[in-house]
């Protein structure tokens, strides 16, 4: 299936820990994103990479560090997790010039 996939789907961890979320797309897109959806379901862009280059970096704490090893993969590493980081994180991809973004299934992060 052509899609955007993320692992893990659920992540429960304690404050202060470091965790990573992985994303892969096989749609052949050149741009990938991380979005955060809070408890009120508000969706906000965090980062975007185009061909492995960081192009959008919203005002996100520097505890969040994205990494793109190639244009089909975009990972999100979070250091020193805080309670407020609890949310659903969505990876998405698109092709430059075409507005449609395709979203992954999400990773529900719960920090206790």
């Amino acid at each position, binding site marked *: 299936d052509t899609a*955007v996939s993320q692992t893990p789907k659920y992540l429960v961890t304690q404050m202060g820990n470091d965790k990573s979320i992985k994303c892969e797309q096989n749609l052949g897109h050149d741009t990938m994103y991380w979005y955060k959806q809070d408890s009120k379901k508000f*969706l906000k862009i965090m980062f975007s990479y185009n061909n492995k280059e960081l192009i*959008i970096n919203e005002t996100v704490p520097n505890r969040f560090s994205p990494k793109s090893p190639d244009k089909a993969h975009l990972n999100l590493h979070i250091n020193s997790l805080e309670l407020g980081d609890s949310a659903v994180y*969505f990876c998405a991809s698109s092709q430059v010039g075409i*507005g449609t973004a395709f979203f992954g299934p999400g990773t529900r992060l719960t920090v206790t």
Partner: protein
Amino acid sequence: QQQVKQSPQSLIVQKGGISIINCAYENTAFDYFPWYQQFPGKGPALLIAIRPDVSEKKEGRFTISFNKSAKQFSLHIMDSQPGDSATYFCAARNALSGYNKLIFGAGTRLAVHP
């Protein structure tokens, strides 16, 4: 201003009725307006999209109406079905920001009662 304002926050419609969700924006640099549908536990999925040079786009039971002068657009779901119960997001892309950065509305939780 990057904001997209969406209303209502929640909507209850009887089966067979018309669901209408409205969005408004300020930034005239927005050039692409998609609507996404999200079911619980799933990622948002593109439903239908429109560009500002078109006033209406219809795909099956879903129609986007676009009013460029008023900077408003709306989603109409005709003959609403219980399976349409989901959260709907309008969004807008800023052509000047490049790379398809989408600004989302706050979402509308639609419940279609049988």
